[in-house]
C-alpha cells in the first residue's frame, strides 16, 4: 500500500564525497516489506523543484519505525535534501517499485550481490534479509574512486566483501565484472543494482547460465 506522510528526520550525515545517509521515522515504514523498493521525496514545500526525488531504501527498522536512505547530493533537489536537519520533516510517498525476489535464494546457497555507485544502497537491506534466512552472501561493490566508497564495514559485517574502484585508488583496480571473473567461489544467483552499462555487462556474461539474475 502506497502512503504519503510527512516523516521526521532522525539523522543525516555525510558518509563519502557528496554521499549522504538520511534516516527518517514515521508510520509509513510499516508498509515497507521488501528490499529494493524506493520512495519519492519532496525536497521542500515550495514549487521549485516541482517534482519528487526517487531515492532507494537502504535499510528498514520496523521496531523503531525508521528507514535509512543513502543518496548523492548533486542536483538542486538532493542538495536541498542534504541540508535537512534532525527534527525537520520531509514529505515522503512510498514505498514504490518492485523489490528484489528474496525467495530466489534458499538456505545454504551462495549468492552474489553486485552494486555500482549509488546502486549499492538497496543491496544492504537485501543482504540483511538473505543473511537472516541462512543464505551465504558475497558483496562486490564498485565505485569511481576512494572518496566515493561507503558502507564497506556494514557489508563486511554480513559477508565477504570486495571493493573495486575504477581509478584503482582503493581496493581492486577495475570494474565489478573483473572481480566476479576472478572469484573462486561458486554461486547460484546474482542480485545487482547500478549503472546501466554495469548491468548490461553482467547480463551478457551471466544472464544465460546462472539459476537466477535479478537486476535493477
Amino acid at each position, binding site marked *: 500500500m502506497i502512503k504519503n506522510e510527512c516523516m521526521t528526520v532522525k539523522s543525516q550525515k555525510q558518509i563519502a564525497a557528496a554521499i549522504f545517509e538520511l534516516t527518517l521515522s514515521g508510520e509509513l515504514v510499516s508498509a515497507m516489506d521488501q528490499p529494493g523498493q524506493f520512495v519519492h521525496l519532496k525536497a521542500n514545500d515550495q514549487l521549485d523543484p*516541482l517534482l519528487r526525488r526517487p531515492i532507494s531504501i537502504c535499510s528498514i527498522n520496523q521496531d523503531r519505525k525508521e528507514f535509512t536512505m543513502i543518496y548523492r547530493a548533486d542536483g538542486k533537489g538532493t542538495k536541498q535534501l542534504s541540508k535537512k536537519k534532525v527534527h525537520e520533516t520531509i514529505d515522503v510517498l512510498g514505498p514504490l517499485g518492485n523489490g528484489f525476489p528474496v525467495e530466489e535464494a534458499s538456505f545454504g546457497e551462495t549468492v552474489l550481490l553486485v552494486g555500482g555507485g549509488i546502486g549499492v544502497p538497496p543491496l544492504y537491506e537485501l543482504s540483511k534479509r538473505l543473511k537472516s534466512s541462512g543464505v551465504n552472501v558475497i558483496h562486490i561493490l564498485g565505485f569511481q574512486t576512494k572518496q566515493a566508497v561507503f558502507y564497506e564495514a556494514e557489508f563486511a559485517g554480513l559477508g565477504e566483501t570486495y571493493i573495486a574502484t575504477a581509478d584503482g585508488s582503493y581496493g581492486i583496480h577495475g570494474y565489478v565484472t573483473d572481480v566476479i571473473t576472478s572469484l573462486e567461489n561458486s554461486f547460484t544467483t546474482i542480485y545487482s543494482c547500478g549503472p546501466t552499462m554495469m548491468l548490461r555487462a553482467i547480463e551478457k556474461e551471466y544472464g544465460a547460465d546462472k539459476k537466477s539474475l535479478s537486476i535493477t
Partner: protein
Amino acid sequence: MNRLSVELPGLSLKTGCFGFGREYSQFYELSKLGAIMIKATTPEPRFGNPTPRVAETAAGMLNAIGLQNPGLKKVISEELPWLTQYDVPVIANIAGSKIEDYTAVAAQISQAPNVRALELNISCPNVKEGGLAFGTIPEVAKEVTKAVKAVSKVPVYVKLSPNVTDIVEMAKAVEAGGADGLTMINTLLGMRLDLRTAKPVLANRSGGLSGPAIKPVAIRMIHEVSQHVSIPIIGMGGINSCEDVIEFLYAGASAVAIGTANFSDPFICSKVIDELPELLDELGIDHLSECIGRSWR
C-alpha cells in the same frame, strides 16, 4: 446539495474537477472525480519521442512525450473497458497527423459506453507531422472540428494551443466549426539547454511547458476567450490547489482539469475536491457555478 456539480455538453459532473490516468486508482477511489481525461489516442500505436523527454524547470516541467499511446484498437479493447469499473465519465483525447486520423479515431472511440465527450487534440507541440498546424491556422482548426463533429456520437471539445498570436480567433474558428466546448490551455513551447554540452536537454530539442509556471498565461487566455465565445471552457494549466480552481472559474472556465500536479502529489484531485467546500464557505459562495466568469461579469 452538491456544491461542486457541473452540467456541460455530454457531461453531468459530480464535481467540476477532472483527474488523469490509470495508475492513480491505487491512491484513491477514481469515482470521486468528475471525469477522467485520458491521454491522446491515435489510429496506430505510437512509441513517442526518444528520451530524455521530460525536463524540470522552475515551478514547471517540459515534456516531449510525442503522443505515446497503444493505438485505437487497444484503447477500445483494454483501456476503456478497464475504466468502466469506476462510475466516472471519460473524456477521450484524440490526435492524429491528418484529418482522416481524427475522424477514424472519433468515429470509433465515441461509441465506447463510458466515453461521454471527445477532446480534440489540435495543439500538441511535440509531433512534427501537422499536429500543431491544426491548432495554429484558424481555417484548418475549423475544418478538422467540423469533420470530427460529423462522425462523433458524443460532444466534441477542442483543446486550444497557447502558441498562437490570437487565441480568440482560434476559439471563434472552432466554435464556428461546431465545437461543443473548449479545453485550454495546452502546454507552452519551451526549451532547456545542458550546461556542459550546450545542447538541448530534451532529445526532441523543444517541449511543452506545464505546471504552476504557466498558470497566469492560462488565466489571461481563458479570461479573454470566455468573453468572446458562448461555448463552455474546461480550464487547465498549472492548477495546484483549491485557490487555483476558483481563479480559473473566475477567469471564465466552467470546470477544471489537473495534469502536472498529479506527478508531485498523486492525491491532489482528491484533496482539491475535499477542500473546495471550505474555501467556498470562506468566500461566501454557495455553489461553484457562481464563480464562472466573475472576473468580467
